[in-house]
């Protein structure tokens, strides 16, 4: 039976119950105690998100300073349960205005109880779409005072909406200025060996949209991905224009995208929800443009001294620049003194994470600043052997650059009233887990 939850608990870091909701009677009331005893107060915490205690299974997740715990007694659908929690949290966030933490829960607990009642019934997930729920869960968070008018007017309408053909969008929206914002956000994951060869590299990207469009618009998005272009040239029987095409390993779409049409015509067409949403996610492993090359040399000079030289090369266009670049070079625990020379940015030693942290706020393309550091170590008797070197980690953001090379070719908006729209497209590449072994 694919039940997703028998009970759900929200706990703070001390283990106090913030919210609890029992959906089914097949789990006992003292489940929180079991969770506290066997997971929170032991080293088990964080070792595995799925645990069995007695006859019950516990799935837990930490989100900011809150633990969300799901308890089931049957052979439940784990993926569904975790997805439910994630969706529920994003629903709460949209109600609370973006934040989800202990305070937000304490300030909105009545609302959360209301929502918990709506989004799941007897362990089966029901409707989690914020668009629809906001129509009939009218109590806005504490941000705005509630008007005590009876709210039965939009309700019959809403319940029809809940299950209508376009469940994610309500009718009758009107904007003075019709705008679409489209963000392509990519994170590059890299694992490079100490010899400079790429062990693993991929890009996970997502396309985020913000729509302020009137009526029921139909949108069509064209990208420079290989399959889409080939299909298009087939249909229009003209050769593909020269230029870079890229191959997407896999794509997933928001439920608004017509998957049948994507499968047959390879075009992304959809009726968007109102406001902000994630249109699609993709993954690319071939032909990734790495924005940075890191060339470290670390020499251990005897037992008490180390020399660290790191050169970072930006390999994107000279007119572009990266922001918030942070390079973390791990050093041994017994580091006593450090001295630095950098050609750009600032470097310091952070003892809390045992790293040399080199920050460069603005990093232009086609440059290669270096950091050289001398590290003095306290000589210890215990560790006679060399210290195991964790990888160098890097953080950055490169606006207007995509590591995959993905570009938006067009975004067409069609609505029966035929209004004009303004489209805004942005690109940004961030570091996912960017690791260089040394």
């Amino acid at each position, binding site marked *: 039976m694919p039940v997703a939850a028998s009970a759900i608990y929200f706990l703070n870091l001390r283990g106090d119950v913030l919210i609890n909701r029992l959906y089914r009677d097949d789990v006992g009331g003292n489940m929180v105690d079991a969770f506290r005893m066997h997971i929170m107060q032991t080293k088990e915490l964080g*070792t*595995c998100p799925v645990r069995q205690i007695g006859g019950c299974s516990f799935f837990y997740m930490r989100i900011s300073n809150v633990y969300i715990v799901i308890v089931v007694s049957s052979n439940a659908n784990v993926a569904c349960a975790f997805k439910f929690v994630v969706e529920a949290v994003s629903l709460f966030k949209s109600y609370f205005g973006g934040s989800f933490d202990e305070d937000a829960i304490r300030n909105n607990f*009545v609302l959360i109880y209301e929502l918990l*009642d709506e989004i799941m019934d*007897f362990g089966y997930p*029901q409707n989690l779409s914020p668009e629809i729920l906001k129509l009939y869960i009218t109590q806005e968070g504490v941000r705005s005072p509630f008007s005590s008018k009876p709210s039965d007017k939009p309700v019959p309408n809403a319940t029809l909406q809940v299950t209508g053909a376009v469940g994610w969008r309500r009718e009758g929206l009107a904007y003075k200025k019709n705008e679409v914002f489209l963000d392509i956000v990519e994170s590059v994951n890299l694992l490079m060996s100490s010899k400079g060869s790429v062990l693993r590299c991929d890009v996970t990207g997502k396309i985020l949209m913000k729509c302020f469009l009137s009526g029921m618009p139909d949108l069509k998005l064209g990208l420079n991905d290989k399959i889409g272009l080939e299909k298009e040239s087939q249909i229009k029987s003209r050769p593909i224009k020269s230029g870079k095409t890229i191959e997407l390993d896999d794509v997933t779409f928001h439920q608004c995208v017509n998957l049948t049409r994507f499968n047959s015509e390879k075009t992304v067409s959809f009726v968007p929800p109102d406001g902000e949403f994630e249109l699609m996610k993709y993954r690319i492993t071939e032909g990734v443009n790495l924005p940075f090359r890191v060339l470290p040399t670390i020499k251990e000079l005897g037992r008490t001294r180390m020399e660290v030289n790191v050169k970072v090369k930006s390999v994107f266009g000279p007119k572009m620049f990266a922001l918030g670049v942070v390079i973390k070079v791990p050093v041994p625990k017994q580091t006593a003194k450090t001295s630095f020379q950098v050609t750009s940015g600032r470097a310091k030693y952070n003892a809390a994470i045992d790293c040399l942290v080199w920050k460069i706020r603005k990093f232009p393309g086609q440059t290669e600043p270096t950091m050289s550091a001398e590290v003095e170590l306290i000589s210890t008797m215990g560790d006679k052997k060399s210290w195991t070197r964790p990888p160098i980690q890097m953080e950055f953001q490169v606006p207007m650059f995509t590591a995959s090379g993905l570009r938006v070719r067009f975004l067409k908006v069609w609505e029966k009233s035929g209004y004009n729209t303004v489209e805004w497209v942005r690109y940004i590449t961030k570091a996912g887990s960017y690791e260089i072994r040394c």
Partner: protein
Amino acid sequence: MAPPGQAQRSSSPSQPSGKGEVSDLKAQLRQLAGSRAPGVDDSKRDLFKKVISYMTVGIDVSSVFGEMVMCSATSDIVLKKMCYLYVGNYAKGNPDLALLTINFLQRDCKDEDPMIRGLALRSLCSLRVANLVEYLVGPLGSGLRDSNSYVRTVAVIGILKLYHISAVTCIDADFPAMLKRLMLNDPDTQVIANCLAALQEIWTLEASNSEEASREREALLSKPLIYYFLNRIKEFSEWAQSLVLELVAKYVPSDNNEIFDIMNLLEDRLHHANGAVVLATIKVFLQLTLSMNDVHQQVYERIKAPLLTLVSSGSPEQSYAVLSHLHLLVMRAPILFSSDYKHFYCQYNEPFYVKKLKLEMLTAVANESNTYEIVTELCEYAANVDIPMARESIRAVGKIALQQYDVNAIVDRLLQFLEMEKDYVTAETLVLVKDLLRKYPQWSQDCIAVVGNISSKNVQEPKAKAALIWMLGEYSQDMHDAPYILESLIENWEDEHSSEVRLHLLTAVMKCFFKRPPETQKALGDALAAGLADFHQDVHDRALFYYRLLQYNVTVAERVVNPPKQAVSVFADTQSSEIKDRIFDEFNSLSVVYQKPSYMFTDKEHRGPFEFSDELGNLSIGADAADTVVPVHQVDANDKDLLLSTSETEKEDGRALSSNGSAYSAPLYDAPASVPASQIQSDLVNLTSGLSGHVPAASLAIDDLLGLGLSVTPAPAPSPPSLSLNPKAVLDPGTFQQKWRQLPISLTQEFSVSPQGIAALITPQALLRHMQGHSIQCIASGGQSPNFKFFFFAQKAEESSNFLVECIVNTSSAKAQVKIKADDQSMSQTFSTLFQSALSKFGVQ
């Protein structure tokens, strides 16, 4: 309004203040109850919030129940919801008070606002009070017919709730049939989905006592119904889609065309953003194509990309859930994933539970083409990250070495680990080197050179120490100072806490003795003396056994303790394929994460009678581990000589044995039956002649040992009281294993089995049925001719005193070797007699 945090802080220091506040609330609520002043709803809201916040932090506010109900007469929907929540929470504990709410809830069920109708109906069904079910039937019936779909979705689940409170009421009111009609006709997909969920639960639970229900359950899987759902799949919400897909996965299509139709229809679901939908689709694909090998493989290829995407997106918890499924698939078909190994590389910051799964997958997909890269990567982990991870990585390298034919490079890597001089790395590596040598004895020269340099003082973990000692014993001729290392270890016998290590020490020193008698003589004497004085039963037994064996004949002792070995070809798999298949059938559920089928963790009563085929492996392993009779030479995968050696232990000296020791060769070499007898003879001659050089020294040593002056007299058996057994004894396997571990062996005997019995013992099952007739139950059995192994148990008729028996029957020698453990030691002799008489009758009638 007071956030619950403040409420808690003010009330937690002393509980009475909480009570005071509750009575305060009570008064205030009472005041507001009748008031119709403007703004009264707002003040009610504040009070209600307080009540609910108290309720959440665990303060008992049931005393204001009456007042809450009185205040519920309002049109404010938020107030109503809070009131419903309150009522739902306390009704179960206060059934009398719950009756008060029926009235207003029933009235709200007829409200003109569908929202309120739905909410009231849901609250009504959530009261969970058995004697109020009669009030549910009416509102539920009209709820199902409501014009508003919201009310209908609530009513459908309400019926499921009713079923769980009172199944009879639900069935009598004919609700399942109504649900079925609704499922087939309702325009709203959420209603349909809820109907499906409810009907699945109800009919599954009813199926055990009603044939009609089980027919109905089957009907859910009928073609028209499945197609009805599939054709509308896109209209369902993502959650309902997973529900429907779960149902489709159970459907058996009539022909291949149908399978392809369904897969074509569902293919786009693999692009869905919800991982649960993708996993459910994958399950459908996998289940549908089980019978078509090539297509099944293509499905693996097709689902790879979506799975890898799911793994790399979302929170670590979500990717763990998906990764567990990927893990299952990789383990089923490692070859199909061998080119994707880079996806299983671990990132530095990933949680350990993710890394561990990835390591196992890396191990599984290793083949000739990618081993080098994978092992290089694993070596990084061994050096770089936290200790558990390093250990796992080393084990992974070892596993790959045991899978591969070309182990040259890997052996070098492992030996490099030993040079890292980290205790935990050394410990793990030693265990692996030991296993490796058992499989590839040809590498002994390289390994021994490095292992010889390890100081035994740096090795503390029992497993590693045991491995080192095993190597010292096994390769003592190549390791120059092996006898002296062993000697120093024996000197510290008292400080050695692990019985496993002491057992290994005994065996190793024996082996060493046969190879280098003069140097080891003293150490052997000390070891046997220490072993005989050991408080641990098995250590004591083994020492005694070795002692008597040496006393009897040194040559024989060598044949028993240090026979020529065959390299292990395959190490035993821990999980049977049947269990794996069951987990696979339960794809997209907890089973996959726990890596065991659901019956093992959901309900105990379903664990039921042990199946002979699939559980035996686990049990006998458990039992062996329990009494830690794991003599070193068992690892030579020659279980038969183990059995023999144990039976030899208890043979009284008076038993007739031919003096040249060749009498042993027949049963001992039973196992490698392919070796012709003549060759054995010549082997034997060679061995004896080879040994003759130092036989005098060895026998001299024996004389010394005899000086220990041990006399072992069997304890006089108490006068046997009569014993009757409970014919319907029950003992679950867990308890059996536990008891087997805890209890000492109270009796070990050898019986003869009648020739008719041997003839009848073609399969283990034959004996089981026979013994059952004598009130002796079997809990596990296995083996093949000529050796069968059984675990029996029996219970005394009047009290719950158990007898546990391990019985090994050798059909070629027509002997049964029996170990008895008993709760009541004084009865074991009697039980043994009973057991013998039962056994002797086997096959006679």
